[in-house]
């Protein structure tokens, strides 16, 4: 593995710029590590093709920006390569709202394109599936929630939903939105031939609440509490990514001690999230004993988090500019003792998931995703690392105190469900040893830095490694006391495509396990997806 510290993002960005030299209309560097290139809409597919052909990073997100002052919508295609982010900016006027698709080059972009279409009212011509992605079935045509002209306080009329497409001649098993195998609502349709799945589609959006729009109506501090509630499992990661971005905009840096405490909470959150996942995934495999054991041990982490933050779930640990609480000596000792117990248990679980014969029949060789597939589908987090892709923001682009208290990356190469179990359990062990080092060397100092109420105008990107993978925030300020735009790209949306892809050819009974394998988080998605294969 290459040491990210040795890669200069300047040379990466310079390389990206030289690849696209002929198409650039305008180039800007909004902050270190970023390069924004304005290109014409018709050049977009060619530019993306050039980047992909030269293996320049992966498509992390498509952000839309409404610019009513110049009557246009701007689309931002963010490509990430290690610590560097290259953004292709394309402007489309209201009068002629159309963009060419890039799905011919990057198939997984279909989700991002469809989200962009319905939220901003821009037609992406040639996109394989132009169906609604995010909004409810009874949402009227021509109402675009993320346009500035849309007022969320006004009641949006309900229209009669369109009928589903023609499914004649296919045998479809619907699952959800309420189903014993689903802990959250989602709707899946599996086309089957006997016991073998031949096609799959997913429709989310049952928990779409419209948080991105709501952030534009709240102050910088209020938005943090809302974003913490994007997802109750990785609530700290959302607040973490948001405060990092806002601090960058305000040119404030949280004190060292605060950064270390953030890493401490993030590490404990990862352990709780992975133990939660281990239990739920074991339950899907019919291994309820493991479910009960791992949830019993998870209570140890919950106790530590509660002792530290006062809350079991939405920790509210972060402030813009710092953290809310300190760690005293007694808490430190309690956490260290808890970590000792958890380490012993994690070693036991590692043994269970890699040796239990009955369990291995459900996981070994099931749902295999090769490294090439993982890279093509743009998966992130433990799902990617189980397929041998070394993608971990904490290592590639260390933020906060991850430079001072680094984590080592855990990689497995098999790509099957067993590898996904092993990666997550090993990650807990890595987190435990990092947290020990952190608690032994907790830097002294203040907890909060002073931050102005109005955040200076600007745009920023912050990326955080959540338990499920890379969490990507794009934040724009216009200099006021409220954000102009907050774009959230959660890890689950990157990983969903991979389930649909790997489902084909598997036994129908393996579907709950395959789904559980990516640790899907429906509320994180905050959006709806329909992917059709076949």
């Amino acid at each position, binding site marked *: 593995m290459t040491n990210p510290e040795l890669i200069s993002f300047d040379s990466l960005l310079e390389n990206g710029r030289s690849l696209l030299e002929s198409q650039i209309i305008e180039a800007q560097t909004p902050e270190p590590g970023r390069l924004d290139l304005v290109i014409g809409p018709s050049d977009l597919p060619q530019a993306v093709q050039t980047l992909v052909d030269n293996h320049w990073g992966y498509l992390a997100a498509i952000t839309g920006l409404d610019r009513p002052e110049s009557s246009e919508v701007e689309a931002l295609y963010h490509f990430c390569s290690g610590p560097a982010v290259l953004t292709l900016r394309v402007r489309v006027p209201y009068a002629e709202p159309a963009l060419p698709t890039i799905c011919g080059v990057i198939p997984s972009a279909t989700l991002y394109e469809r989200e962009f279409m319905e939220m901003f009212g821009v037609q992406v011509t040639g996109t394989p599936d132009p169906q609604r992605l995010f909004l409810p079935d009874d949402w009227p045509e021509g109402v675009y929630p993320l346009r500035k002209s849309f007022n969320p306080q006004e009641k949006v009329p309900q229209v009669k939903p369109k009928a589903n497409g023609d499914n004649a001649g296919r045998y479809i098993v619907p699952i959800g939105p309420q189903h014993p195998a689903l802990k959250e609502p989602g709707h899946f349709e599996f086309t089957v031939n006997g016991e073998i799945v031949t096609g799959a589609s997913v429709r989310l959006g*049952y928990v779409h609440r419209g948080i991105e729009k709501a952030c534009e109506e709240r102050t910088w501090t209020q938005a943090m509490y809302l974003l913490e509630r994007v997802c*109750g499992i990785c609530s700290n990661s959302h607040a973490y990514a948001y405060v990092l971005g806002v601090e960058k905009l305000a040119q404030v840096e949280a004190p060292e001690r605060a950064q270390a405490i953030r890493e401490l909470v993030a590490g404990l959150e990862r352990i709780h999230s992975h133990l939660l996942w281990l239990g739920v995934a074991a339950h899907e495999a019919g291994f309820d004993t493991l479910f009960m054991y791992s949830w019993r041990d998870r209570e140890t982490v919950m106790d530590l988090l509660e002792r530290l933050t006062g809350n079991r779930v939405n920790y509210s640990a972060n402030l813009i500019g710092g953290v809310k609480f300190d760690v005293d000596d007694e808490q430190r000792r309690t956490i260290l003792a808890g970590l000792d117990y958890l380490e012993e248990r994690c070693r036991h679980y590692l043994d269970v998931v890699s040796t239990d014969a009955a369990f291995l029949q459900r996981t070994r060789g099931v749902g295999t995703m090769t490294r090439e597939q993982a890279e093509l589908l743009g998966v992130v987090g433990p799902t990617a690392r189980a397929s041998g892709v070394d993608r971990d923001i904490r290592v590639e682009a260390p933020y906060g105190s991850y430079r001072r208290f680094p984590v080592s990356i855990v990689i497995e190469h098999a790509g099957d469900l067993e590898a996904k179990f092993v990666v997550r359990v090993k990650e807990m062990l890595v987190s435990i040893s990092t947290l020990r080092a952190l608690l032994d060397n907790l830097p002294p100092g203040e907890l909060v830095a002073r931050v102005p109420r109005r955040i200076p105008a600007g745009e920023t990107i912050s990326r955080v490694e959540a338990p499920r993978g890379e969490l990507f925030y794009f934040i724009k300020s216009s200099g006021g006391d409220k954000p102009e735009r907050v774009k959230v790209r959660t890890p689950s949306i990157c990983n969903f495509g991979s389930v649909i892809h790997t489902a084909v050819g598997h036994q129908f009974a393996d579907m709950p396990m395959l789904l559980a394998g990516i640790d899907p988080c429906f509320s994180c998605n905050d959006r709806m997806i329909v992917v059709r294969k076949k």
Partner: protein
Amino acid sequence: METRINSPWNRLMDQMKAWARINSPWAIHFNSGSCNGCDIEILATLTPRYDLERFGVKLQGSPRHSDVLICTGPVTRQARERLLRIYEQMPEPKFVVAVGSCGLSGGAFQGCYNVIGSIDEVIPVDAYIPGCPPRPEAIIDGVVKLLSSLKPGAAGAQPASNGKGMA
């Protein structure tokens, strides 16, 4: 409204049904737009530390076999129809427990364009458990209070659905 014959046999049957209902309620869980916070706490109540099963509560996958609907989250536009359908599929008498601030009032998501509001704007609710999210102890307390209210003669022995039309 069914007519009740106040015979000794019927009284005995009612007592037996109430006894069975209080001691082994089957619960179904539906998330109509929650952030997961309440859902993981509900799941935590079923696992060894809190162990809701000691009250005879069993989580059940099918609405047709369930007595209690445990609901989390504000109701989104897309989930509304499904929440109604699940409620309608449950046999009478049925009880609804709304868990979490969002389920009670819309919580942090009030005013979001895709959120209709609290659960009791869509279906009748019998027990409200506040918190963001409520602690497992609070959820257990809510369920136990609901169960003890079902004892014959206790206030609230009738479900909120009785005599009310659907919202």
